[in-house]
């Protein structure tokens, strides 16, 4: 199953594989009701490539954010509050959709891991699915996490959020074992996911300028009593 172009470099083989479990680890989580941008981007990329996505236990799922990353919202089916029966919802969806994005309410038991693992496997009798976990999953095939993240656009009382530069670290089992990293705009100023190109990253000034040009609203000026106040801060 395809991933967003910017994420292809970090995933083993550049794709999401049916039968695989991809765990996206959170750094901090306020309420555990929403996926991080990273998990959102993985599901968005799959849906843009024509895959159906089931979403379980994520009532805070940022619909506008997913759509900004290019998700095809017409291919999402959500079960927001399955409560303690989240694993059953995953099992039902795994038989129908291509990607199941789930946030288990707590660390899943061995029984859950075993049964869901069997359910998503591709066999002669079932089509197989990718399990995308927002959180921990024992024995995940691929694990993604953010090692760095810096927001830009805000100053001391000025500006607005214009994007976040992150470093994604990926490791996993088998072929995916070697840890690799990628630097991304997640999200970029227009809500999409982009590679954070090294040249631009080298001189922050350049990156800032691109931003300013890319987003008209940022460089807006306010004339306050004859004095020009520039609403911009790096």
């Amino acid at each position, binding site marked *: 199953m395809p991933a967003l172009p910017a994420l292809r470099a970090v995933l083993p083989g550049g794709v999401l594989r049916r039968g695989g479990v991809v765990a996206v680890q959170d750094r901090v989580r306020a309420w555990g009701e*929403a996926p991080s941008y990273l998990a959102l981007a993985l599901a968005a990329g799959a849906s843009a490539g024509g895959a159906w996505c089931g979403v379980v236990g994520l009532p805070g799922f940022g*619909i*506008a954010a997913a759509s900004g990353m290019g998700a095809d919202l017409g291919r999402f*089916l959500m079960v*927001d509050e399955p409560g303690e029966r989240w694993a059953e919802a995953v099992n039902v969806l795994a038989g129908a959709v291509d990607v199941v994005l789930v946030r288990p309410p707590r660390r899943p038991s061995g029984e859950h891991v075993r049964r869901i693992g069997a359910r998503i496997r591709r066999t002669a009798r079932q089509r197989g699915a990718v399990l995308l976990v927002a959180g921990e999953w024992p024995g995940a095939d691929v694990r993604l996490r953010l090692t760095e*993240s810096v927001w830009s656009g805000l100053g001391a009382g000025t500006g607005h959020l214009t994007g976040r530069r992150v470093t994604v670290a990926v490791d996993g089992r088998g072929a995916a074992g070697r840890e690799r990293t990628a630097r991304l705009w997640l999200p970029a100023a227009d809500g999409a996911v982009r590679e954070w190109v090294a040249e631009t990253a080298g001189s922050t000034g350049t990156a800032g300028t691109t931003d300013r040009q890319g987003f008209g609203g940022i460089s807006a000026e306010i004339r306050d009593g004859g004095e020009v106040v520039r609403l911009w801060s790096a």
Partner: protein
Amino acid sequence: MSAVPDRALAVWCPDWPVVAVGADPDTAAAVVVKNVVVACSFAARAEGVRRGQRVRDAQRLAPGLVVHARDEAAEARAFEPVLGVLAEYTPRFEVVRPGLAALPMDAPARYFGGEDLVVRGIRDRIGELGVGAGVGVADGVFAAALAARSDTRVVAGRTAEFLAAFPVPVLELPELDEPLARLGVRTLGRLAELPADAVAGRFGAAGVAAHRLARGLDARPPAPLRQGPDLTVETVFDPPADGSERIVFAAKALADELHAVLAQSGVACVRVAVEIHGTAGAAGVSGAAGAAGAAGAPEVSYRLWRHEGLLSSTAVAERVRWQLSGWQIQLQRNSTEHPADHPADQGITRLRLIPDHLTPALGVQPGLWGADEAPDRIARAAERLQAMYGPNAVTLPADRGGRTPLDQGVRTPYGDLPPDRAEAAPWPAALPAPAPADVPRRPRPAVVTDRTGAPVAVSGRLLVSAPPAELTVPGTGERLRILAWAGPWPLAERWWEPGAAVRRARFQAVTDDGRAWLLAVQDGAWLIEAVYD
């Protein structure tokens, strides 16, 4: 174009699934699918067995009940002799399903000297076959099929009176049964009394069709588009195909193509004609062509099947299979009579599907997901999840305009109509992209303090008392240092509606753990509207 449908004759063989599996007519027998009775013999009915019962209940009522599995291929095969009788009267008979066939009455009645003679002739010939059948005549196929149940000939023009006493479920539109019953409409007569526009308004295309049938009209207004383009689809088998599997497989694909062509032209067909060409017509018996004609050996099998826009491509393929097996039986019989002329194992060279009696497609519903219809498996999973978690638990997301992140994404319960497309209207005071990833259903409380630890306040004129320095999230107990912030941006919504008015001042903030927040002050209290993470 007359409003009254053409006279039609219907032949109805009662309990056909039971007869076709060869059950003894005098014992209690039932044909079941998935443990539910779909047909039962007269003897079983006398003991209280009914269609739709579970096998267990049926067996309790009739302990000696013999249960058979359904064999649709056998039903089609066994129906062939009956169709042979109809073919003697007109080549344009149509098969509604095995056990029920119809033919247009006008031409045969003129040719054979009156409706009565045709009815009597068909009844006698079918009687000779040893098949129990009812023959009915009325205006339109639907009424004729009902008339056949009681062996009735309905006088021309009085079909509506005849239909009035029948209960609504004979329409076989289950989605209408219950709503109509709740309205006190239990018979077709009562349904026909309702104003047509009211029925159309309440029940849509299905209601219009039901109302027309109840008034003794055709389900769809007659508006043949004969001058239109030729919508016939065909497959040529080269080399000729033998073995029905390959042909049925091709028929499925061909039916898909036919449905696509029909949908593209915006028409539906009442009937579909299936034409199967065999090799015998091409070369094999060129020398014996005269003899073949005399013996009635079909080199081409042509048959009309009732479609009404209701047959799936699988159902069309199934009908091709039935027609093929019936034809092969006929060929085998011929080949035993004239072994030299008619090799029974001839190949099939060509399969054509010809839509017959085109009408404008009415009330075609776009799928819940628009033109790109969701596959069955998705719908099945959604329905199963609804059964598990409740009807509102399964939702479909959609993008919509709005000022707050919560408004920008809507969730529609599966099965409800999705909201209108995103409004292109500008949303002043909406935040620019990127949108937050975490949008709680209701804003969470927060505490924002300045460097001295005093709560930050925002005045009515949007003056901030001091730069915010610390964010406390009571829900999780986190205390985070604010590195950068911007705001306040005013948001006033529904101020014209006293109860629903919202007046907020919004801020964005980045905290020392790397997260960014969308905060708001409303009525002096800080809220977390969304988290960017």
